């Protein structure tokens, strides 16, 4: 199934170079894949995965290894950041 994988701010560096201009990678993943699976596949330090959103909705740390992505999901991750 297809999902979109987005990494922002300093996490952009963990994307392949060609994906950094868009912060987005379109992936073909197997059913049952979780946010944690993709975080590990791309070697993201867990302490930097602060804001984890699936389709814009926050996924708490406790659910990141159990929440299965479905076709068309957009997983977006930020390190600790703030603004105002």
């Amino acid at each position, binding site marked *: 199934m297809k999902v979109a994988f987005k990494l922002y701010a300093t996490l952009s560096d963990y994307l392949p170079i060609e994906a950094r201009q868009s912060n987005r990678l379109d992936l073909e993943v197997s059913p049952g894949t979780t946010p944690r699976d993709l975080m590990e596949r791309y070697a993201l330090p867990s302490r930097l995965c602060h804001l984890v959103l699936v*389709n814009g909705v926050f996924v708490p740390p406790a659910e990141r290894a159990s929440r299965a992505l479905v076709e068309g999901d957009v997983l977006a991750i930020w390190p600790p950041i703030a*603004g105002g």
Partner: protein
Amino acid sequence: MGWTRKVLRVDLGKGTCKSEPLNMALAQQYLGQRGLATKYFVDEVDPKVDPLSAANKLIMATGPLTGTPASTGGRYSVITKGPLTGAIACSNSGGYFGAELKFAGWDMVIFEGKSEKPVYLSIEDDKAELRDAAHLWGKTVWQTEEIIKKSHQDPQVRVCSIGRAGENGVLYAGIINDLHRAAGRSGVGTVMGSKNLKAVAVRGTQGAGGIKDAKAFMKAAADAKKVLADNAVTGQGLPTFGTQVLMNVINEMGALPTRNHRDVQFEDARKISAEAMKEKRPSDGRAHLVTNAACFGCTIACGRISKIDETHFSVVNKPAYWGASGGLEYEAAWALGAANGVGDLEALQYANLICNEDGFDPISFGATLGAAMELYELGILTKEQIGIDAPFGSAQALVKLAEMTAQGVGFGKELGLGSKRLCAKYGKPDLSMSVKGQEFPAYDSRGIQGMGLAYATSNRGACHLRGYTVASEVLGIPVKTDPLVTEGKAGLVKAFQDATSVFDSAGVCVFTTFAWTLADLQPQLDAACEGEWTMEKLALVGERIWNMERQFNNAAGFTAKDDDLPPRLKTEPAKTGPAKGLVSGIDKMKPEYYKARGWDANGVPTKETLARLGL
């Protein structure tokens, strides 16, 4: 240095500058800066005063930690009655001006009356005098600062001033210090202009002193700096990416107001984001962002310094804009960009430079332009009226209309009055995305419910800096709450509003609160300031300040009906994103908030509440 215990009172009508002692009994109740200056203001000014009359006053105030080694201790605030809203106005700025004012020995400067001719105030330590500013009138902020530094033969003099916007009656004109730091919102610069006061130039050589317990203070300040350094947000996130990192976050969450709040996601958000600012441009191979920057004493350094693309249509043959300068910050990038559908980063930076150069609020300007673009798309405004085709997304219109607003010419005069007056004039008052006449900042109330309540109840009109529940609802600071629900938001908004009132009154930046709580600020205040400053006392001070501001607004004529959001946010559901189908739950949250505040159903503080707060 705690307080300097001195107030400078400037009578612009008589041309006098007099020193008077700070009321230390009030300082114990209202701390400083926002709180203490507002107390002075409400005691001296009729709430019904015409904001642009001589009877209105304007106060520039530092906090007890301004000028000290406390991190971010460089803030000052401007307090007056705002012409955009008719409500209490309090705008806070960083840079170096505030600390310099403190070094000169002043806690605050109170301006009253109106000068017959343009003047500026010169302060050199104890010596203060009004000087002729005829040669400065009509000049931009950038020109004014340069001329004053040259004439004083002192590059270290710190200047705050108004640009042409403040002279021309743009109702959201700000006061700019250090070229690009702004007391930006609610039209404090308009009031300054109405008094024929062009600038304040200050040089202070008295340094920091008068700390109650210097040893304890240095330890408390160092401990608190370590908290900021060790925190991933204030230690790494903000200095590296600045506030602009929010652009993609808020867009992903479906809470990025787009095209005058018609939409909640902007297809070009990434093009105007922090990530885009760090990428090399095809035109010159350079990144837009040059470096980050810090205000006085700041150990966060979130500020952005950028260099515009010299080949961009907005600055061709305009080398004055080619140098490195302030911006873009998130709010300006949103207001000049998503709010009117413009995805051209360089055009946004140019408009931002114009706002800095001539002193007007990019939030209110950008949002007002968004309203004008909607009126244009509806066929209510024409190209002939505006002076240019102005559909959503037009970078050309953004650039031209920013210039026209700065210069006070053509349709720029109408944009300068804000969206409320603009939309009312053209028969569509509901299209003004504002509260109490002040335009929304960069968060949609349908996707971040708590912010809707924070906007509706903000004492200076729609504002994100009175109670920034985005910290909790989006960023998880101090704890994560669900942005899509209304439950618990009344208490959350109140807590943020009260705590922010304390930070705004201390002399430090509210951005410290991404890492600090009141428990980190309290030891610094307690060591610096005369008296006992406990957590309980600070909590009470914050709530007292909020209620004092509320009472002023109530006396000025505001009622519970004014604590509301535009119909669009209550009746037109978000079209996309996580909030799809949702409208703001303001009508549910508001009574809960009044109850949490100890106010009656009309939004008036009860006698019990006033007695508890010593009001």
